[in-house]
């Protein structure tokens, strides 16, 4: 029994020791880089329900993610990406003087912006920021959608999408659900995405219902 235990202990030490070296470990080059949104949906709903992003401010999220990094054995780089996603989703930012807020466009110019929107770029942005809740197909069936009430909207519903103008979509993406009387679980991305980015996402979203 003691020999087996010695073997177990030695094996564990050998397994763990490489990680005691500064940032040495398994190569991440072969793994596709995951966005903060994807990491959040993969890690933060496995044990408990997703909590609303606006439930905590930026400083509180920092403490929470630090605790979860330890409890959930989340690698440091992933924890930082998740924290960045959560803090960016808090709109308005809790410390506005420390962040550069992208200039927001006037109501009249959204039409012009939509004319030059890039749908392929919008697809990439959608997959980075939106799929965790709205799903890859846009049907509101992302991994995080399970514990959200109300559920994320089905963006493939053409009748519903036709009823929404571009300005509305711009407002909800820019300022979050609360700004348009919708779910507080929809974060605002105005401090992360430029107007052009939002227009690109809108153009891609429109294509999902066509």
């Amino acid at each position, binding site marked *: *029994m003691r020999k087996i*235990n010695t073997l*177990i*202990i030695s094996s*564990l*030490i050998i*397994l*763990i020791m490489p*990680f*005691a*070296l*500064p*940032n040495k*470990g*398994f*190569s*991440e*080059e*072969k*793994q596709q880089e*995951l966005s903060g949104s*994807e990491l959040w949906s*993969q*890690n933060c*709903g*496995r*044990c*408990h*329900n*997703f909590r609303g992003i606006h439930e905590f401010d930026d*400083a*509180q999220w*920092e*403490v*929470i993610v*630090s*605790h979860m*990094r*330890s*409890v*959930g*054995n*989340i*690698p*440091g*780089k*992933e924890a930082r990406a998740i924290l960045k996603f959560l803090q960016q989703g808090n709109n308005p930012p809790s*410390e*506005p*003087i*420390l962040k550069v807020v992208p200039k927001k466009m006037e109501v009249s110019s959204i039409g012009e912006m939509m004319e030059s929107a890039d749908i392929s770029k919008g697809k990439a942005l959608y997959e980075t920021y939106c799929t965790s809740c709205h799903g890859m197909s846009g049907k509101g*069936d992302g*991994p995080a*959608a*399970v*514990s*959200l*009430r*109300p*559920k994320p909207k089905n963006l493939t519903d053409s009748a519903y999408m036709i009823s929404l103008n571009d300005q509305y979509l711009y407002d909800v993406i820019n300022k979050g659900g609360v700004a348009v009387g919708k779910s507080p679980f929809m974060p605002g991305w105005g401090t992360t995405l430029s107007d052009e980015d939002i227009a690109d996402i809108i153009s891609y979203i429109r294509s999902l219902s066509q």
Partner: protein
Amino acid sequence: MNILFKYFLFLFLGIFILAFSSSLNAQQSNIEKRLNALEEKNNELERKYEDLLQKYESLKVEKGLIEAEKWIEEKETKDKQQDETISSLSSYVDKRIEKFSIFPEAKIFLSGYGAVGFKNQNGEPSTFNALFAPIFHYQHSDRLHFLIEGEFELEDDENSFSLEIGQADLFINDYLTLVGGKFLIPFNTFSERTHPSWINKMPDPPIIYGHGGHGEHDSPTAGIIPILSDIGIQLRGGAPLPLAKGSKINYSFYIINGPRAVIEDEHAEDEGDEHVDQLIAAMNEEDEHADEEGEEHADEGEGANVDLQFGSNFNDINDNKTIGGRIGFLPVWNVELGASFMYGEASNNIDFYLLGFDGQFQYRGLNVLAEYIRRENDLPGGGDQNVDGYYAQASYRLSGLSFDNGMADKIINGLEPVVRVGQIFQEGEDISQVAIGLNFWYLPSVPFKIAYQFNDEIPDSFLFQWAFGF
């Protein structure tokens, strides 16, 4: 002549004077007329001047007002911007002060959970119960995090407060964290991750987790192990794997004080503690007659059981420490398989080991958990005491259903049926349990749970719990 000349002279003078005076009068009259006319004109010009002056003044005032308004508007905008900047600065400064300005990166956060429940076990009085566990976090910097969890516990007629967790986390690098203090032991996953009442999908722990220090004291049995926490140090972490999206490995290794072994002897009531003391003395070789009496007592020791008490060995009563660890493997992000072990020599020279396996699967609203635990320990009289068991739980969140009715959808989307089965296999008595439950998630961290347990060897129970996490 002279008179006539004088007469004509006077006449002529008179006529001249008359003529002159009338001329003068006429001139004066003209002058007066002209004066009057000029005066009138002057008056008219004065009036016009006054009018123009008034117009000028009013124009001046009007222009001044416009400029004044502009000036006021600009000033108000500047004042507002200044106020916002001051407010923002003030808020920033307040937050820094609030979070210990001495350590600008330091942050304090209070979280925790609690629950109120109701239990009706056949053959026992029904009862309400409650627990409250505040958790204080202090983050000194992005590398150092402190955590203290206390628990207010109410049991029988006593209420108590205990330190459940008091640990420090030092993030050595992205893959390794040093933990020290009193921490939840990473043996399987229920103790460490899913036991808090707002996360556990049933009102009580699985059957293999029994009574013991962590507030979930509604377990109907002693279980195989309690919810584990102990004092020691730990290295843990996780790393991504180059297999698939989200694939990872996580690992934990710890050294702790370990449990105390309490020997429960069925003969104790007949013979008092003497028999147990003799057993212990024989095992510890304190008795010079141990070789002679040891074996005799060993035979009599049959029937003695060992109760391993985790989490209450605050000052270790021997030099023996307990070691253990867990490795978890996620081939994809929504599947985790884990293996755990723990080995040590508890008090009274009782060797023990624990072996555990755990698994988790998640797909949309479906969540499946399962754990297996095996415990082996020496017995005072020789031989081993073995007990093993498992539980499996499945839950499904009805968030995908819609009946196009706002209120009905809100209620139905918050519902989550749960089923859990479990068994304990031990000498002389196997215990089985099938529990069905229904949760309603009022908020992501506030569930209302009801459950009914169909048990073998122990009474059936009805349970209700309202839990909250904050």
